[in-house]
């Protein structure tokens, strides 16, 4: 008798466990984000209801990312695919096709007013393309959050209240950070508002917060600098008395060390642009990235 009771309780528990784990697996929205910054945003808006996988890991360069079969598998089983758009993920269309992804693709930069850059092609023909690094302006970050929220609600209407509450809270935090950034950078004297960084991912940042951004390499880390590029940038630093040179987490720093050595400009630490740092690094989330970047900028430029 006792024996049978134990057995039936055990069975019931097993069934319950089975149901609950089944239910849990089912009601979490499976989302894939193309790179770490977007992944962080989706996590903030989605909260507990969304399971987010990031394709391009922290500290990696999305420009030259090449997807692995595991990435295709991850994407194939996802319901939502969050991408930056504006040509940032050149590998995206191929991956979507080859993985057999059936879900919804959400372009986070939808509605952003893009900066157009002119990229010189071989043969002298200039080509205009949109600068994809729109998230470097917090005002655009708010648009991203709104797009993410709407995408999540469309895919999972039951979680509407949660997503709206999370997004509202997040938007509030972004607005506070935006005010803090403007205040901190606004204090800099006009003559010291110029920086050089190894990857021109900060055009939006510069335009939004009044900094002049100069890069020694082209828009993409794919291009190799020539002696002329380096000579030009050194001349420019000397002529315009640019106070600081910034390194980035994704490109070779030896070239910048060389430039700094030759011009006497200050090396201002690492700025995070295309990727977050790992969880123990200085920029584990989107807003931490801004705090870290602004701290590094003011430290180098205000002295």
């Amino acid at each position, binding site marked *: 008798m006792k024996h049978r009771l134990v057995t039936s309780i055990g069975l019931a528990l097993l069934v319950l466990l089975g149901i609950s784990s089944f239910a849990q697996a089912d009601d979490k929205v499976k989302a894939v984000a193309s790179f770490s910054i977007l992944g962080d945003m989706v996590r903030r808006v989605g909260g507990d209801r969304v399971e987010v996988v990031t394709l391009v*890991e922290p*500290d*990696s*360069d999305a*420009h*030259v*990312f*090449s997807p692995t079969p595991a990435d295709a598998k991850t994407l194939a089983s996802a319901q939502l695919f969050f991408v930056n758009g504006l040509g940032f993920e050149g590998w995206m269309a191929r991956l979507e096709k080859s993985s057999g992804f059936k879900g919804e693709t959400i372009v986070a930069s939808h509605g952003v007013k893009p900066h157009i850059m002119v990229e010189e092609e071989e043969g002298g023909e200039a080509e205009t393309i949109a600068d994809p690094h729109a998230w470097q302006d917090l005002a655009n970050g708010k648009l991203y959050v709104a797009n993410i929220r709407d995408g999540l609600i469309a895919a999972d209407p039951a979680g509407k209240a949660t997503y709206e509450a999370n997004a509202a809270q997040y938007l509030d935090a972004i607005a506070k950070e935006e005010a803090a950034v403007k205040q901190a950078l606004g204090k800099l004297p006009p003559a010291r508002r110029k920086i050089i960084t190894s990857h021109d991912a900060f055009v939006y940042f510069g335009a939004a917060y009044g900094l002049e951004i100069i890069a020694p390499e082209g828009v993409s*880390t*794919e291009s*190799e*600098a*020539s*002696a*002329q*590029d*380096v*000579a030009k940038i*050194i001349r420019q630093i000397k002529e315009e008395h640019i106070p600081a040179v910034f390194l980035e987490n*994704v*490109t*070779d*720093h*030896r*070239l910048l*060390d*060389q*430039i700094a*050595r*030759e011009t006497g400009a200050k090396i201002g630490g690492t700025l995070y642009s295309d990727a977050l740092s790992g969880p123990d690094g200085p920029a584990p989330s989107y807003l931490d990235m801004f705090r870290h970047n602004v701290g590094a900028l003011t430290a180098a430029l205000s002295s």
Partner: protein
Amino acid sequence: MIDAVTQPFIEFAFMRRALVGCLALSLSAPPIGVFLVLRRMSLMGDVMGHAVLPGAAIGYLLAGLSLFAMSLGGFAAGLAVALAAGLVARSTVLREDASLAGFYLVSLALGVLIVSVRGSNIDLLHVLFGTVLALDDAALLLIAAIATASLAVLAVIYRPLVLECFDPQFLRSASNLSSPTHLTFLVLVVLNLVAGFQALGTLMAVGIMLLPAVSARFWAEDVSGMILVAIGCAFAASLSGLLLSYYANVPTGPAIILLCGVGYLLSMLLGRRSGLIWNLVPRKHLEA
């Protein structure tokens, strides 16, 4: 004209550094290349250039973009592959060229894999292509030290090495210097590749070693003459490559190696010894 040549070097320290690095390389790598060519080991140089990659990658994995770790790793891996290929050729049915091809493909794949595992895939490009414009004091010292040492060692083993090129049987019968010479020579090859890899990257380092050497074959009669011509070619290509990169806005490493290649083409056409043009001229003369 002279201004156009000197101005970039006077104005910019990074150009001077790049020039010094390339000239130091041009002094030691082409003579090694000459012996590689004479011993029919040209492809061996290429293979070892690739073999340096996984070693450098392991160094990179352990210590990041550290000059010392990457050089040491590259040196160890290059030497290991050279020795292993020789061993396989001597003790199995496989010929040396086949075993070299095998080792080279495996090392390249391994190197790419190791660098990618670390995550930041962009750094692979810098490992593969180097940054001659970003040579710092440590890198310059390393290149200069390797160039000095390899010239000195080359002077010491010069005689047995020349003998080994032209009459290996005689060397083997007359003295027991054959294997030590061969081993020392292999060490020199790898050392020079490691030096070149700092400036030009693993893929291009072989270029400045071999292209001037094969060009020199079209001009000089004897080994010492070939060495001088090869060094001259490498000097000219380094200087003009840097200027080309400066004025025509093209990447520096490829510019230098391409100009080495132009030197090779010109030598092939115009070279005093069996240049293609000279083969045509006497025939016409006889017909007339």
